[in-house]
């Protein structure tokens, strides 16, 4: 693999080697080509942003990473190995967690239960033990509850712990979704427009959480976002997509001044 060495960011943080690499990915839906021959990589510990106009194929790219779509062509490399075709739940068990563009919380469950589902991949007790609420099942439940409570504290959603998520306002829902993903203690976290529909104040909060996750747990983050302010401020490197093609890749500053990117996406220079 190329470029396994890390690099040092502008503000002096050390970034690790390649964690995930997408090689020549093409995705077709019937006759429509949503993604055409795109390659890029994600390094361990970095915040990698993916931007581009609506319909560029950003979400589709994330869906490929998390196994929801299978690329028509191309390879996905993860932790130095080529990943065979997998079901989404198997991908999740590799330590890849995500949030969704249109909130995909389990509306009928409480916040706590939603976040607990993030721990599913860590729980193994058999059905009999669970039915009796005995032994392994009980210990596991308590141990994982502790992890979850930490995440809840971290994201400052203690007070809504037992509220059914259906009743929450949008911004909090997004936060709960993040909590669910974090509870899985992923090595790669995929965020699809985590700040859409938020006001500045809430975006600030969310940015803070993302940066803290990245800082404190060293979690690698891939992020799709339309707010250029946020993207430019918090990401280490940016991929720019436009109608299925990659038109830019590099540091925020490099991308911001790229004329193709300005034409296709930004409209006016930010």
């Amino acid at each position: 693999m190329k470029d396994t060495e890390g690099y040092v960011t502008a503000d002096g943080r050390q970034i690790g080697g390649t964690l995930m690499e997408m090689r020549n990915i093409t995705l077709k839906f019937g006759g429509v080509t949503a993604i055409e021959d795109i390659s890029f990589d994600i390094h361990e510990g970095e915040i990698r942003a993916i931007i581009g106009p609506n319909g560029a194929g950003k979400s589709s790219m994330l869906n490929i990473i998390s196994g929801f779509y299978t690329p028509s062509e191309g390879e996905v490399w993860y932790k130095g190995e080529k990943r065979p075709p997998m079901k989404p739940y198997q991908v999740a068990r590799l330590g890849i967690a995500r949030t969704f563009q249109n909130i995909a919380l389990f509306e009928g469950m409480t916040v706590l239960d939603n976040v607990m589902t993030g721990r599913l991949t860590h729980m193994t007790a058999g059905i009999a033990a669970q039915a009796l609420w005995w032994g392994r099942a009980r210990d596991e439940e308590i141990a994982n509850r502790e992890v979850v409570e930490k995440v809840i504290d971290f994201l400052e959603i203690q007070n809504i712990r037992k509220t059914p998520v259906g009743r929450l306002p949008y911004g909090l829902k997004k936060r709960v979704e993040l909590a669910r993903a974090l509870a899985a203690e992923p090595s790669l976290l995929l965020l699809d427009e985590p700040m859409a529909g938020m006001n500045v104040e809430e975006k600030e909060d969310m940015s803070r959480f993302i940066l803290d996750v990245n800082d404190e747990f060293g979690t690698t983050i891939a992020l799709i976002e339309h707010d250029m302010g946020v993207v430019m401020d918090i990401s280490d490197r940016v991929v720019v997509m436009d109608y299925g093609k990659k038109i830019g890749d590099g540091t925020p500053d490099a991308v911001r001044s790229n004329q193709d990117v300005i034409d296709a996406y930004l409209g006016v220079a930010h």
Partner: protein
Amino acid sequence: MLYRTAGQFKTSYQADQALFPVRQDAILLGIILAFAWVIFPLTASEFTFQTLLIPILIYSLAAMGLNILTGYAGQLSLGTAAFMGVGAYACYKMVTIMPWMNPVVAILLSGVFSAGIGVAFGIPSLRIKGFYLAIATLAAQFFLVWLFEKWAWLYNYNASGAIQVPNLKMFGVYVAGPQADSMVQYFVVLAIVTLMTMLCINLTRGNLGRTWKATRDMDIAAELIGINLMKSKLTAFAVSSYIVGVAGALFVFMWRGAAEPNLFDIPLSFRVLFIAIIGGLGSILGNYLGAILIVGLPVVLNTLPAAFGIPVSSSMVEHLNIMIVGALIIFFLIIEPHGLAQLWRLIREKLIIWPFPH
């Protein structure tokens, strides 16, 4: 402020996860159990046992089984009765082939057969969703009832095609068959239903329960966060059909005493579905509330005209009955689509903040 939760703090996660974190709930449950185990048996008449107590328990259990599948795992099933039938026929075959078998063991084992068949008919759920899935369960419904009719081995080549519960003893007492005493049967049913309810509560509040609920609420997202949908759906089918099968065995062995194939036809499925929905999908308590309503209502309605001395013919009562049940279903759906259990929850919430309005 009878229902005040303030002041009850939890100091450990374990305590917080206790079954009834609110003290009043535990007390209420104690009272209900005392009624079920002591007061009813002491006071109930034969008629009450046969037309209210035993059927309510059995229907609650069947609805609980369905609720696991439909309410918790989100897979609509219209074939409950057929799976009850599998349980009943399995039990019948076991006790006639092995007459020495303990009847309660036979009843508990019969659920295993319906679980197996439930899983087989659950396989299409991996591809088929929503109302379309109902077709898979309807196929089970109609195919199995047909099989009960055509496969003479199942009813021991009985001329009438119906199964008859033989007299069965346990610890020297008749528990099934015409010789059995209603109170004994009631206790057997109550014990099994209590046990099953506890297992269900544990399953639904634990990891498996969350897996099911996630599958129900949004299966794509569930899969993307690491849930193996196949496993989740099939365990739901298995657990649900197991419980439904046990309920079916109880239905015939502890209550009806005999059964013909079309007993397990679709009206029974609908009946159980009503109970689950009126009671509240995704709730354990709701099954009991629903069963009390759906089983108890016609009994009450039937006695009403006589009680008030209104001369109405029995067929008219029956017509009115059907009409009223239909209307009540609509009525309850309108006042609380999430069922009686939700109604109870709202009342409880109001009680907690009472006397303040918001």
